[in-house]
């Protein structure tokens, strides 16, 4: 059992309320870094001293927040109204179990049972605005005594492993956090490595923007979990990355064109180290790279991701081999990173 992934995915940290996950990560890295601090937005920033061979400042980032819910009102019957925090498919919500507020009260996103649905209602998709969260309170007063408006709610999914597959919540992006923690625990790099565990990625890359401004790195590597879409597909058209085929490397998404020098550095490193990799389908999506690359005078940046199925639902799946290869590839690519590589030809 991978204890690191278990601890990180079972901890709670919905965007804007990352205290629990931040404290956990702080405790996991504190003995392995020269210094750590928490900035104004709640980003956890650490420095791992290098050997002094290289004067580069390199930032490795993984966002620690996860998608979830926020309580917005209490109905007279004691059910809770909520809004989503981060991107959701409404259909992924009905009937799911969540943990509400700092006390982690169990709650259920209520669904009308099939017995009580009229035939036409079975065809309809219930909108999130019509959903309620049920914490078993009998009335408004009882519910209001247990939760506050603004409390977050997160999914409840125990971490499990089935052969090479890990099952759990929030691999997006606790898988990236775990990989970054492993890098911090390893041997020193030729340069000082700045690590950021950032807040509020899921609501617009907000934490990363201020970290990049603060650190002003010469280069940045972003560790992520990218949606795999490898289920049976009839047509031979642009499938996305698949579980088990290795780390996925970004070239272009909706918010970035990744630095071509770093992308080829990473693919060359993978080939040299005999690590399998896949190029993530260029096009949509976005990561902290979009914010970091454009900050200040600009930062050469690239992204390596663990492919994950069912992102932004209560339960995700990743391949443990992919995860280990992301750690291996990120580590090897960083060790081979030189200032010369960042010179424009």
């Amino acid at each position, binding site marked *: 059992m991978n204890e690191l992934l278990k601890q990180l995915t079972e901890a709670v940290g919905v965007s804007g309320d990352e205290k629990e996950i931040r404290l956990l990560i702080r405790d996991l890295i504190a003995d392995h870094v020269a210094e750590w601090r928490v900035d104004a937005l709640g980003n956890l920033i650490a420095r791992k001293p290098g050997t002094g061979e290289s004067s580069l400042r390199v930032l490795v980032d993984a966002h620690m927040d996860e998608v979830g819910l926020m309580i917005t009102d209490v109905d007279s019957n004691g059910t809770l109204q909520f809004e989503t925090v981060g991107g959701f498919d409404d259909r992924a919500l009905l009937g799911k179990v969540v943990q509400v507020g700092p006390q982690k009260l169990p709650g259920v996103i209520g669904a009308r049972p099939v017995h009580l649905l009229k035939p036409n209602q079975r065809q309809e998709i219930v909108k999130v605005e019509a959903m309620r969260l049920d914490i078993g309170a009998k009335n408004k007063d009882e519910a209001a005594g247990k939760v506050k408006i603004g409390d977050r709610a997160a999914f409840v999914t125990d971490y499990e492993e089935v052969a090479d597959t890990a099952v759990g919540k929030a691999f997006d992006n606790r898988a990236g956090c775990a990989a970054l923690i492993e890098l911090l625990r390893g041997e020193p790099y030729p340069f000082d490595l700045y690590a950021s565990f950032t807040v509020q990625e899921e609501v617009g890359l907000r934490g990363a923007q201020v970290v990049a401004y603060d650190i002003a790195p010469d280069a940045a590597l972003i560790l992520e979990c990218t949606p795999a879409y490898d289920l049976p597909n009839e047509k031979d058209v642009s499938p996305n990355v698949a579980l088990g085929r290795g780390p996925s490397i970004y070239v*272009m998404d909706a918010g970035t*064109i990744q630095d071509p020098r770093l992308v080829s550095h990473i693919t060359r490193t993978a080939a040299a180290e005999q690590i399998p990799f896949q190029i993530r389908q*260029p096009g949509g999506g976005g990561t902290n790279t979009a914010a970091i690359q454009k900050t200040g005078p600009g930062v050469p940046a690239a992204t390596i991701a663990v492919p994950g199925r069912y992102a932004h639902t209560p339960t995700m799946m990743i391949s443990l081999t992919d995860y280990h290869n992301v750690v291996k590839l990120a580590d090897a690519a960083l060790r081979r990173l030189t200032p010369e590589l960042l010179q424009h030809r």
Partner: protein
Amino acid sequence: MMNELIQKLVEAYGPSGFEDHIRRLIRAEIEPFADEISVDALGNLIARKKGSGAGLKVMVAAHMDEIGVMATHITKEGFVRFTNIGGVSPHTLLGNRVEFDNGVIGIVFCDKIEDRNQVHPLNKHFLDVGASSREDCPISVGAAGVFQRNFLAQGDHLTAKSMDDRIGCVVAIETLKRLEDIPHDLYFVFSVQEEVGTRGALTAANHLLPDVGIALDVTLTGDLPEARPMAVSLGQGPAIKVKDSGMIAHAGLVQLMRRRAEEAGLPFQMEVLDGGTTDARSMQVAGPGCAAGCISIPCRYVHSQSETVSAQDVENGIKLLTAVLSQPIDL
């Protein structure tokens, strides 16, 4: 003479994010005329021309990237599916040719056409690169290509695939060549990644922190049959931008450009653009902000393979920019 430079730049490869080649070409052109040349973290080419010390710090931005495509998937038969880099419309695609940086040419076509009045979305198009299987396909996922089309000079009209914005680069280069004894400290930035969100100009301006930012770009025209109304026509002079969908130009700078055009007896048009924006948007809000504006070259068929400008507008654009930069900028 200038047509040679235009041809060299518009036929060159340089999709957003992959500007190494076009940057080398432009660098060679400007090297003799700049006091300092540098390339920043994102790949912007920055040429400084020192002023007398009496003026302002001015950033002039012309983007050197162009729209293009990126391979997303290779079918087992060796066809290449692709996505857009920047604003590529499916209306402009069938039968066109795409060139990759390894020299491979792809012919664009689309899936079965059920209704001739309907255009397939981009993801139902593919490139035929002469391969017969995924294994022998010379293009891999992530490869970037640009449209291929020769430069055409016909009367006053100049037509090419990437007038947007290589013609802005030409205006910048020619102005840089002609300027003498200027009061202002000038930074000519040949920017990257404009077509995907004016990204290069943002980081360049964050770094340079100019007092004034002037973008050089193309703008749409309203002079075509059944066109969307717009008071800009080809051949009627460079356009002084007042507003587009990303920026309201600094009113004082707009007035100054207008005054300089009038003083020099240059034709000009006032531009209000409904859709689209330029590097001026990024310069305006970078760092502590700056007074930003844009001189536009009117262009027909923007983001097609036959973007068309008027040679006279280009020449007058150079004269206008030269007049603005060689005199005091009092805002």
